[in-house]
């Protein structure tokens, strides 16, 4: 079985994979990083969004074998080393941007990428950005508010 070496949340890892093994399977089943979720099988819901080399990507739509040498960050890796939550995580908590929590990791990872790409996105831009992240609980209202607040906090921290 081929091996792939990559960095996950700053830690180098080496795992055995089949050609067909997806990144999300490596994260959840081999590395025990179950914060990255699988909500659909058509690559549309975004519950599995992680960062690959700093950009958001769907862990269900990447072969593990593709990621030789890549750096992957999951929801478990965004808080500070001291355990302090990322400003985007804090903003979701402050603004009740989550209910059941299932879409939340993907939502937060997508939101952080947005805040980096477009630090002062309008409500309209945020809603468009979230095309690949489906939430069934919140109606998105508070997610939009959370991302606005989280982006502002990230701008302020710069």
């Amino acid at each position, binding site marked *: 079985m*081929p091996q792939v070496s990559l960095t996950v949340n700053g830690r180098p890892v080496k795992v055995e994979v089949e*050609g067909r093994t997806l990144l999300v399977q490596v994260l959840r089943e081999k590395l025990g990083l179950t914060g990255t979720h699988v909500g659909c099988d058509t*690559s549309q819901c975004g519950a599995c969004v992680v960062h690959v080399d700093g950009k958001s990507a*769907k862990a269900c*739509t990447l*072969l593990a074998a593709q990621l030789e040498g890549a750096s992957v960050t999951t929801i478990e890796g965004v808080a500070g080393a001291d355990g302090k939550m990322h400003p985007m995580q804090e903003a979701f908590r402050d603004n009740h941007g989550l209910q059941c929590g299932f879409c939340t990791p993907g939502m937060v990872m997508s939101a952080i990428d947005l805040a980096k790409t477009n630090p002062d996105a309008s409500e309209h831009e945020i809603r468009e950005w979230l*095309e690949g992240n489906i939430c069934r609980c919140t109606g998105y209202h508070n997610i939009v508010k959370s991302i606005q607040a989280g982006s502002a906090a990230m701008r302020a921290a710069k």
Partner: protein
Amino acid sequence: MYDFAYHKASSAADAASKAKGKSDAKFMAGGQTLIPTLKQRLAKPSDVIDLGGASDLKGISAAGGAVTIGAMATHAAVAGSADAKKAIPALAALAEGIGDPQVRNRGTIGGSVANNDPAADYPAAVLGLGATVHTDQRQIAADAFFVSVFETALKPGEVITKVSFPVPQKAAYMKFPSPASRYAMIGVFVAKTAQGARVAVTGAGNGVIRMKSMEAALDKNWSPAALDGVKVPAGTCNGDIHGTPEYRAHLITVMAKRAVAAAG
């Protein structure tokens, strides 16, 4: 997903050589269509050859009246390219509207064009701008490239290396996304070029097509109103639960007029 042997190619030539002798090798660009297809067990390739490491397939440049985009340029790269935005803003805007941000971060122009999904956006730009598809073997004009649904002029083992788009005088793309999948239910790319107007339609169902009747009308009068008299037959389009052929044919007119208006 059925299992397959995975290979990473370092260049277009390496990819072509790795494909040789395999019973059913598939090239993978960004994988944003191929992987979902494999997950549904709709394809069973023996080998998947990943072009992600082919450094010769990247890059975006504008020169000599054309914008040239490496096959492995992501949609996000095209959307953010200063060269593309300056030379053909409609092309950058189209890339900005493909899929969702995560698809745009991984999906590529080469993959999209080679796959020729009947609801994909890029084929409309390639055909609408009269682009040239460059492969490791030859150059193919857009009008000869798209053959049928999911079918192109590419031969087995042939690798797209880049696509060059001549800079038009004006152009715009308007998409009516399917409410569920968000793929183009109808997308219309219009361009005013030195050789005349071009109108390409994606999403109608039978692969990307040129609307010659609209082109003729726009050649006479480049304005949205010029399209009022152009009847789009319902037979141009397929139907599904989200749109009958009649509705889609109507949307072609609406989107074409809006595109012409946006192009200015």
